[in-house]
């Protein structure tokens, strides 16, 4: 609550994260899985003296390098950019725990870029053994990058034994690290096979397609197996609140069903590809399969993010950006007392005095409502737009004022995805006053 809050109408600011993150994951996982598939393809082509396959793989490598280096790299930075704007407390916490994990990932990323450039730009100049080595160096570094980032993202969902006093490794090897690494490794092999399927259907001669599709399908089936093992592990280590969120929230249930459905369809397609070869693959089918793979990734990411509520970092930071350890202080002193930007707004823009800030419930109704509106901005707007995503206005329309008051008093008891009220009693009254005006079609 010490930072200013960026208000994005209709969408909420944190919803900008999936807009950047989901396309990134779909491409970044291709960057990882595609590395293995390309290295394997090149190894096979050299060993069998297949000039036609090498010609095709060169064309694929060009598409691969362009997409992953340009789009993958920039959107990757973009996620970091966006979380800093929308969740500064959590971003700062992650950086302070994992700064040298990120620095390590940076080293790996440099190797990834250099080897990818050497692999593509020196095609035909490198000796076969060097070219093969370059491909495998790329694949290994891209996978290590995935492992390092997974440790950080998994930590947000399951902090495990970590406490603020604990070190990097306790945070990194958190309970969902291994399951999520398996899922992401498997997912990257599968999505890479689907991307390459599209490219094969568009650019490869039929005979070569027939040879390469079973080869990439084999990798993808291994990937699906990793997803299955990782998925079982993931659900077994999920914290209780996350399990409850998945069962209770209709959107998360839909995402779970989509995830399972899309994964099963992809598995069937890979099995078919492995058994029947690739002559039958045409561009519309391949694109449809890629779309299904994208649905599986999107729903999986949504599930992971949605299950995390009411925390941004499990048992450390609540979704409004308040550290759990500070909750009791805020409930005693008030949210306003610990939010310098909110104070600035109330004092300078609304002209309220120190005394009024300490007890906003005693203010005349119009001012009380204004304070309540500002409290909504700081406490609620990161998850609830007024009218759009998770819209508060439509949500409370059928409620009576008593129901609104009751819900705010027992926020975390009525819904496991909600944090407790993180202000004092007087501020709660001001927020309730504001919410009631929303029912009347007010401000």
């Amino acid at each position, binding site marked *: 609550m010490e930072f200013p809050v960026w208000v994005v109408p209709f969408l909420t600011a944190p919803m900008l994260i999936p807009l950047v993150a989901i396309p990134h994951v779909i491409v970044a996982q291709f960057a990882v899985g595609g590395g293995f598939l390309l290295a394997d393809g090149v190894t096979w082509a050299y060993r069998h003296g297949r000039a036609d396959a090498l010609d095709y793989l060169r064309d694929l490598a060009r598409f691969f390098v362009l997409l992953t280096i340009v789009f993958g790299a920039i959107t990757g930075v973009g996620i970091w950019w966006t979380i800093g704007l929308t969740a500064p407390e959590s971003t700062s916490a992650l950086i302070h725990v994992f700064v040298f994990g990120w620095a390590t990932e940076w*080293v790996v990323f440099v190797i990834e870029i250099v080897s990818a450039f050497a692999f593509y730009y020196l095609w035909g100049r490198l000796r076969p053994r060097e070219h093969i080595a370059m491909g495998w160096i790329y694949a290994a570094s891209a996978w290590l990058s995935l492992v390092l980032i997974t440790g950080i993202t998994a930590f947000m969902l399951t902090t495990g034994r970590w406490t603020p006093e604990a070190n990097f490794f306790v945070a990194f090897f958190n309970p969902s690290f291994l399951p999520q690494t398996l899922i992401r490794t498997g997912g990257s092999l599968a999505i890479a096979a689907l991307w390459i399927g599209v490219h094969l259907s568009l650019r490869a001669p039929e005979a070569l397609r027939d040879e390469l599709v079973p080869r990439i399908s084999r990798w993808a089936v291994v990937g699906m197996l990793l997803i299955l093992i990782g998925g079982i592990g993931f659900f077994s280590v999920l914290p209780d609140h996350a399990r409850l969120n998945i069962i209770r929230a209709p959107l998360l249930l839909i995402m779970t069903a989509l995830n399972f459905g899309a994964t099963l369809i992809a598995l069937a397609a890979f099995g078919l590809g492995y058994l029947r070869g690739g002559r039958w693959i045409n561009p519309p089918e391949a694109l449809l399969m890629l779309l299904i793979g994208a649905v599986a990734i999107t729903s999986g990411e949504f599930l992971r993010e949605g299950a995390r509520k009411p925390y941004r970092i499990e048992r450390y930071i609540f979704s409004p950006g308040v550290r759990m350890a500070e909750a009791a202080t805020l409930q005693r002193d008030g949210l306003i007392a610990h939010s310098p930007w909110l104070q600035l707004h109330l004092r300078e823009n609304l002209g309220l005095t120190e005394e009024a800030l300490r007890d906003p419930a005693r203010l005349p109704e119009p001012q009380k409502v204004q304070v309540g509106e500002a409290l909504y901005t700081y406490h609620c707007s990161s998850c609830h737009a007024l009218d759009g995503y998770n819209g508060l206005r439509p949500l409370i329309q059928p409620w009576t004022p008593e129901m609104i008051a009751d819900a705010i008093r027992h926020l975390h008891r009525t819904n496991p995805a909600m944090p407790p009220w993180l202000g004092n009693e007087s501020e709660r009254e001001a927020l309730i006053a504001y919410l009631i005006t929303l029912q009347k079609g007010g401000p």
Partner: protein
Amino acid sequence: MPPVPGPDPLGMPIPVGYLFVLKVFGFFLHAVFMNLWLAGLPVAVILARSHPRVSDRLIAAMPFAMAFGINAGIVPLLFLQTLYPQFFYPATILQAWFWFLIIPLLLIAYTAVYAAAFGRWRILSSLVAVILLTWIGFQFSAAMALTARPDRWPALFQNAAPAGGVHGWTLALDPEALLRLGLMAGMAFGTVGAFLALLAELSRDDSRLQEQARPLVPILFTIGLGIFGLAGSLYAPTVADRLPQILQLLAGASMPIAWAAAWLYRAQPRPATAIVLTILQGGVLLSNAIARQVVQAAELGQWVDLGKIPVRGEWGSVFLFLVTLLIGIATLAWIFKTVWARVREVRPG
């Protein structure tokens, strides 16, 4: 009193001195590549007709400069957010949409750079990239200038605070940001000059490149020195009280020294003089990166005493980083050695 948040309660991972060194090193590395696109792209566009070989080589180098520049840019931002999160986040949130828009703009610029390198609408694509990348550069300078000036935050916030939140459409149009961009642009012309000198001398069998590049090097340095001198003479007095004299001297004099070396190179165009020029230009970037860091630390020192922030002592993760770095350097050395050998082997006559 501006609403500066407290330092992160998790404390510093390791003593701040090490973090400063890593931040400066990262900024230096980022500046090397970023300079190449900041001045290299406009130079390539302007010289497309008169010096086509130089223009071609610069445009061909841009995808690599972009890839490594963006990658290296992660390092200073990472350590800036470790050292000063309470300043960096409010400064960027106040200009949230502009800061967020850097990502799509960079994506377009990067695509345009690749389009130019692959010969698609070379001049138009390069021009689009020039405009977008210059704007991004300005946006960066504005964010960094505002990071160091919390006293300016309240006024910006009060004009942009619907119900206490920030709408994010405020742009901190600060003359300081323009001057900082000017300093960087001045250095960038020098970096492109040094890059061309090195390229010309390494491409010994490319006589067209040598003919076109050699006379350009001192001209680029002269333009760079002009911009650097103008921006520096306006900017330096505003930070003179926060910068030790020795650093003022080093940062200010480094560019004229490199400029003199550029003329020496023009008189004696050889690999040795090109290497000396490149090292001196590296000195320009490094001395200015250090000076920039010292000024920022002094500005923010008014608001936070980093020495009082507890240190966690995350040495285990530092060890992981260093081991990975060593393995990484060994791997990169092998890759570069291999690449160098093959490139020389098949170079066309």
